[in-house]
């Protein structure tokens, strides 16, 4: 699973997800990609589950690029705890996703195979996505 090696601060504020993604919004490596159409948080487990689903489907045929990294710690308070007494402890790592962000890229497979692999992957992800392919212009 994708986890940061070292962080400067253990806890972060939640932040806002306004506007569209301008960086990482175009295909850079492969011919096909999975693009987020809405914003959200993508946990390290979701990223890994989608990657495994795609890798199993394409077997050893193509290459996959993961374009997002979960670098934001998410805290949670334990169950049945009274409110107050500070922020909870870090429980998960997430990637902040804005609309138009490319999540995965694929190459070395046919369009049908890529479509099916991304269909399997998007069922593991909590954010609505769409399939895109490289255009000439």
């Amino acid at each position, binding site marked *: 699973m994708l*986890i940061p090696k070292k962080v400067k601060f253990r806890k972060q504020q939640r932040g806002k997800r306004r506007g569209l993604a301008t960086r990482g919004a175009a295909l850079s490596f492969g011919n096909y990609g999975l693009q987020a159409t809405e914003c959200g948080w993508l946990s390290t487990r979701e990223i890994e589950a989608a990657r495994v689903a795609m890798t199993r489907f394409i077997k050893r045929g193509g290459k996959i690029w993961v374009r997002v990294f979960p670098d934001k710690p998410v805290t949670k308070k334990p169950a049945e705890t009274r409110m107050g007494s500070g922020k909870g402890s870090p429980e998960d790592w997430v990637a902040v996703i804005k*609309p138009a962000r490319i999540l995965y890229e694929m190459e070395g497979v046919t369009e049908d195979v890529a479509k099916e692999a991304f269909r399997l992957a998007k069922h593991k992800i909590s954010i609505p996505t769409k399939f895109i392919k490289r255009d000439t212009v």
Partner: protein
Amino acid sequence: MEQINISAVQRTEKGKCSAGRLRRAGKIPAVLYGPSIIEKGKGAITLTFNCKEVEKALHGAAGGNVLVNLSVAGEAKPRMCMFKAVTRHPLKATIEHIDLLEILMTHTIAVDVPVHIVGKAAGVALGGIMQLESRKVKIECLPTQIPSSLDVDVTALNIGQSLHVRDITLAPGLKVVGDTAATIVSIVAPAAEEAPKTAEEAQAELAKSFEETEKEGKEGEAKEGKEAKAAGKEAKAGKEEKPVKAEKTEKSKK
């Protein structure tokens, strides 16, 4: 070299509000620049295109490398130009803006030509994966000589081998611009499939990462605390010294 005819209208309004109005009306804002326009003392000419007309012209255009016969309303002669940049909406993929470059047919220009892979590599048949490192190659030539694509034959490539820009055979009159040692295609061995982790292993990994970050945090806090204490002591010592000096100065005055 493919040639297309497009008509445009000069626009007087500038700014994002007017550009938004144009887009909503099915038009595209654009700019035209080039050596002859700069000579006349103008930076660029602002234009408006019909969205459908441009989409139709761009559809099937070889990497956008088409000669555009641009007829601007109110101008007697059509201008010869090329698409320099086509900006699309990141999510809807609709055209938002176009940059056109006016060209002179007698002068050479540098353009990005797409690479076209020919044949099936021997390494791919053995289980390797073909990796396209660069999809375009920058070439200098006359506008009439721009090829629609550069054919790259990969049939002889085995696993571990690669093809570079210098290996491409170009037609006379074409010249590569930039690094000739750049890789175009390489055949790599397939990566070994990792055994998927169980939920327990994944949970343990996450927990470990948080323990480490917590430890680092505590160490950092302890360090900061020590530094702060040391700084405090120094400050105190400084304060104690000051009144002594003051007393001394008072005594000397008396």
